């Protein structure tokens, strides 16, 4: 069955040389701030937005997102708050929305309830970086019946054989991790990345979205023609924290 998110990406790809995915940590600095960020992302052509559900142990995130997760958890942001916000956003904006977070959020809710809640809130899928391909069967099977895209990650250290295994269970698009490390530090766009993208393309026909350290126009220019989508996370939060809506607006405009 071809997936709704995949169809959306394929259509959009015909109009754009590089699509854009952005990221918001729910409740950080506040849901009001998040809303204004989403408006700016919408105005500046974001095609997909990841809404990160804060988790107390964000071990795959870099310092800025760790701080954001922690502040949101400390401020009492709940999973229900995130779902409510997601629903409001999916009704208002035309970009697609993905839940991003850690597996325990889904596990603790129960996979059935989690997938129902995402559908109800208007999400197109989810990204759970600590859900490896060996463990994804149950959650992916449920997602399939509900039309949600479980986004899988491919990384430069993933053996080729395993890229195929990942491709076989992925839907919607592939999250291509540009380098080792955590989110938020600068990535040197290089021929190494190009080679890796070529390996990914051999393993899958799904659209490729490249993230981790994508932070400026130079990066997005590099990705044009090599990938389908750029994922900009930490850099946009940093812009917001540095200079609020003005800075974030300028930052997003300059990416194009």
């Amino acid at each position: 069955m071809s997936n709704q998110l995949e169809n959306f990406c394929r259509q959009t790809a015909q109009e754009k040389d590089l699509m854009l995915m952005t990221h918001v940590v729910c409740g950080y600095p506040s849901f009001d701030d998040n809303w204004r960020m989403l408006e700016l992302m919408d105005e500046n052509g974001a095609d997909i937005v990841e809404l990160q559900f804060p988790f107390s142990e964000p071990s795959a995130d870099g310092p800025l997102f760790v701080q954001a997760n922690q502040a949101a958890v400390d401020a009492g942001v709940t999973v229900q708050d995130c779902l409510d916000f997601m629903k409001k956003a999916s009704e208002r904006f035309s970009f697609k929305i993905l839940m991003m977070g850690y597996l325990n959020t889904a596990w603790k809710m129960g996979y059935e309830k989690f997938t129902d809640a995402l559908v109800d809130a208007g999400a197109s899928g989810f990204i759970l970086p600590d859900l490896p391909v060996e463990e994804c069967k149950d959650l992916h099977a449920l997602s399939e019946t509900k039309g949600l895209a479980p986004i899988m990650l491919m990384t430069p250290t993933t053996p080729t054989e395993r890229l195929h295994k990942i491709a076989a269970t992925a839907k919607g698009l592939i999250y291509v991790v540009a380098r080792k490390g955590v989110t938020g530090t600068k990535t040197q766009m290089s021929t190494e990345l190009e080679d890796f993208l070529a390996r990914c393309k051999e393993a899958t026909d799904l659209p490729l979205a490249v993230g981790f350290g994508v932070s400026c126009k130079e990066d997005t220019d590099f990705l044009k023609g090599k990938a389908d989508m750029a994922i900009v996370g930490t850099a946009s939060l940093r812009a917001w924290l540095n200079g609020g809506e003005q800075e974030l607006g300028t930052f997003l405009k300059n990416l194009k």
Partner: protein
Amino acid sequence: MNLFDYEDGREGYFGEYGGCFIPEILYSTVTELKDCFNDAKKDPKFWQEFVELMHNYSGRPTPVTYLKNLSEHLGGAQIYVKREDLNHTGSHKINNVMGQGLLCKRLGKERIIAETGAGQHGFATATMSARMGFDCKIYMGAVDVARQRPNVFWMENLGAKVIAVTDGQQTLKDAINECMRDWVSNMEDTHYALGTACGPHPFPEIVSYFQSIVGKEAREQLLANGAKLPDKVFACVGGGSNAMGIFQGFLDDENVELIGVEAGGHGPGLGKHAARIAYPDATTGIAQGYKTKYLQNSDGNMLDTHSVSAGLDYIGVSPILAHLADVGRVRFDAATDVEVTETLKLLMTIEGLIPALESTHAFVSAIKEAKTMNKDQVVLVNQSGRGDKDIFTVAEALDDTKWKTFIKERANLYV
């Protein structure tokens, strides 16, 4: 009982617990470690090399001491103690660390990172790194750095770099997160020497493998001493490495009861303790790379924990022990901060033993139960570490005025 003979498709699982929930980027590194460990395990010379190293460098075998005074005082079971406190660096942590050092050499890596709570694992890792020539970085929660300064002092002087982690609760769990972040960035040349029987597969197995030397020795020593097999074996449980170490010596002896003692902190109640199994507050979750019982809220976010002992102050527990509790092979109990201080005072004055605050938890339950047992019964306690490192915490708990005066006078020397 072979815990590590995994069923098809259930590698790294112990009942419903365990597994390997790591970011994809680490897959190759963890596979490399698993292969290296499996090769080493098959090589009979490897275990021999490990044992010789421990004899030569850490003073193994550590003795089993009969506590005549305490046994007579209580009037119940005969109490024996496995003396892991007599290891170099003062705790059982060195067993796992030296073993992982040997693995690191086999992997051809030059850099070691480790988390530490009480600082004992960090201290042992810094020592091993100095001896084996690795570059060493230790992550430690800022709260733990503050309560375990003596260990930080030694780590730094042994040449390790100690990073105080200021995220989250600033304790052991946050140090583990920070290690994962370092590892995903530097895995080519770096081995993560996880310090307890937790974390993603194969860590629970690797750590249990090296710690099994404790139980193997203890069983032989008791029998050689003319004592019978113990009726009960007690060990404190933070992540579960010293408990797994001693329990493995007796897993197949059905009549030997195994009791894990967790940190009861201020007693039952969410956020007041670190008892994941003895108290009913924990639920199954997936975090820090593995599935186990976690002290978490209904959204799956981890709760604050509390214990007087940094080494037991942790949200999760070894998946192996969670499973052994489920199947009824290990029973769990908790000891509160207050009970621990009282028991420490008793042990010091009646036997001249100074167990670590962590280990004292095991004694609390052992003493309670020994009293109600017969004189011909035998209790074995794992004294996982020595209490010198806790002198600041203990002096404070005992409200020792002479110590306070001493500290003030010393402080005056530095103004």
